[in-house]
């Protein structure tokens, strides 16, 4: 008898380990699989039972519900107050288009047999039968763009690395998911780590790299331990090592752990950190694709970018680019967070509206109060008002609306939010996390927080608003990287979309 109790750290944070222990106490013969989370985080702990007609879900389950689940014969799909029916038929999940997250929550994360049974390693096998050029061509044709936030075409980046001659090349995966409101990288690594490994191996074969690093933040201890287990399994099964799947390609992966620095999510600061140095941003050029880690040509991609590659190789570029809108092709893994009734992972084709995401999927606010603001794309992303809810969620439309997609995080606030306070926080956060290399970011952030404070206190409001906008312009145009360059985005969008919070009169 198989029962699934997620081992995802979000599920554990609301008691999944206690639920698993309670089940074992009542019936030690039950085999408990610690799968990843299905992504419907408001239903955690989501317990699933394998039955002849499919997996049946119960949730949200706490440890004290377990004895009543046994009384209701949940092992055979019995009826109970927490009964949700077949997991695959829960509308919130069934309406999504899971590509990158296809296996997350379904398989045992560190079972290579499960991974293969659900289509794993087909992409890598195909890649081994193609020339490196053909692999890059496939990724380019798919339209896959960097999911870390910058949205740069992955295939073009790979091509630059492939064409640069060097004895040593690297694949670096950016798993420094520091944006508040984002957790897709963590959930993918905890729920389906082999997909990331497979994507990195394909990238390595395409560009001629032999070593890979995955930079995971220290705030993700569970992801680090799951990924290390997956690396060990991959090494023991020739997915990593001297002869990848019996081929002549050699590739290995090492984890490097971050140390609590947000700016190390910026790609060149990440390289410095992997090299063991202060996480200070590098000036570009040279591009990391030409002079990257330890001065060698380096592919740097986000977790979701690399984890989408196996599917593209397995199903073909056309299958991927058939999804999406305009130049935003494929699917985006949106993350619904903050003050939201039904938060979690929503993977769907680009082009869904903000309203559909936040209201249809998200169900509005958790508190039940009116929804007032949504921040899209992390601490460097814009604050949107409900007047902008018909915005299409894709790279270009969000830029046109004065924001950016970033890593796809959507943070919801109810009407108790004060956008001037949020704007001040954006500046304060920049001051805390600035690497200090360039002046607009290092000094501007502190001056910005001070100026917003004056506006909040009602001191020379019009004059200080003008000064703040001027400062924002300097930071946008004069900063070395996105840390200082995009901090003005939440500040200015808050001023434009919520002017009543910047009058100096507190209500």
């Amino acid at each position, binding site marked *: 008898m198989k029962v699934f109790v997620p081992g995802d750290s979000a599920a554990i*944070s*609301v008691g999944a380990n206690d639920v698993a222990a309670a089940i074992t106490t009542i019936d030690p013969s039950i085999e408990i699989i610690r799968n990843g989370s299905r992504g419907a985080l408001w239903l955690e702990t989501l317990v699933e039972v394998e039955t002849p007609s499919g997996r049946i879900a119960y949730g949200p389950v706490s440890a004290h519900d377990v004895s009543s689940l046994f009384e209701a014969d949940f092992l055979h799909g019995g009826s109970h107050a927490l009964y949700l029916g077949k997991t695959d038929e829960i509308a919130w999940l069934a309406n999504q288009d899971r590509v990158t997250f296809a296996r997350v929550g379904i398989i045992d994360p560190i079972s290579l047999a499960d991974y293969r049974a659900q289509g794993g390693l087909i992409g890598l096998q195909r890649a081994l039968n193609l020339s490196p050029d053909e692999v890059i061509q496939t990724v380019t044709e798919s339209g896959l763009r960097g999911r870390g936030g910058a949205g740069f075409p992955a295939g073009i980046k790979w091509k630059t690395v492939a064409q640069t001659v060097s004895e040593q090349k690297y694949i670096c995966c950016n798993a420094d998911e520091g944006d508040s409101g984002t957790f897709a990288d963590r959930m993918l690594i905890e729920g389906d780590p082999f997909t990331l490994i497979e994507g990195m191996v394909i990238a390595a074969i395409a560009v001629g790299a032999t070593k890979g690093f995955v930079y995971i933040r220290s705030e993700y201890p569970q992801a680090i331990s799951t990924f290390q287990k997956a690396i060990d399994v991959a090494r023991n099964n020739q997915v990593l090592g001297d002869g990848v799947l019996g081929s002549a390609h050699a590739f290995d992966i090492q984890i490097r752990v971050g140390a609590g620095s947000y700016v190390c999510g910026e790609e060149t600061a990440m390289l410095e950190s992997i090299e*063991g140095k202060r996480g200070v941003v590098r000036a570009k050029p040279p591009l990391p694709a030409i002079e990257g880690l330890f001065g060698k040509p380096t592919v740097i991609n986000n977790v979701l970018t690399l984890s989408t590659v196996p599917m593209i190789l397995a199903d073909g570029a056309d299958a991927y680019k058939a999804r999406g809108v305009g130049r935003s092709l494929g699917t985006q893994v949106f993350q619904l967070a903050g003050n939201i009734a039904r938060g979690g992972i929503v993977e769907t084709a680009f082009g869904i509206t903000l309203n559909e995401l936040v209201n249809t999927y998200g169900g509005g606010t958790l*508190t039940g109060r009116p929804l007032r603001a949504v921040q899209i794309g992390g601490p460097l992303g814009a604050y949107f008002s409900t007047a902008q809810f018909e915005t299409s969620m894709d790279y270009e439309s969000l830029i046109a609306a004065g924001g950016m997609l970033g890593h796809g995080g959507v943070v919801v606030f109810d009407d108790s939010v004060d956008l001037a306070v*949020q704007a001040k926080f954006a500046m304060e956060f920049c001051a805390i*996390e600035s690497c200090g290399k360039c002046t607009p970011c290092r000094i501007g952030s502190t001056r910005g927080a001070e100026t917003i404070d004056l506006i909040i206190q009602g001191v020379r409001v019009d004059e200080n608003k003008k000064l703040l906008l001027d400062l924002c312009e300097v930071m946008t145009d004069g900063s070395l990287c996105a840390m200082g360059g995009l901090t003005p985005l939440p500040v200015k969008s808050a001023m434009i979309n919520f002017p009543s919070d910047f009058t100096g009169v507190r209500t």
Partner: protein
Amino acid sequence: MKYVPWSQDAARILLATLRDEEGPVLMALQLMQSEFGYVDKAAVELIANFFNKSRADVHGVLTFYHDLRTTPPTEHVIALCVAEACQAVGSRDLEQVVKEKFGDEVQNAYCFGNCALGPAVMVDGKLIGRANLKKISAARL
């Protein structure tokens, strides 16, 4: 959290495990902290000599990263997320009451990737979702 008392000899044995690593300085500092709970002043010179770096290089890395500390930690450590998604569900109010009750044990953190189930708090390395004073106090035992 239980740590080993700082000793040069124990530190040397640990550093030897990093001999073949590329760019080992940050890893070395993290290893010191995970073993001893903090990075002792004497470790800076030890790491510098061991990996043929200047003390300034090692000091620079040590002082850049928020995670690294140069004094022993409190017996319990409560890391409370105060980033936007947790602010949206009241982490600033929670911060006040938790700091009032647990004082020096509390430090601010920016995101544990538990943004749909906030406020998120990590108590002695254990992540808590939908955190409140009661849950934090229970996890601290």
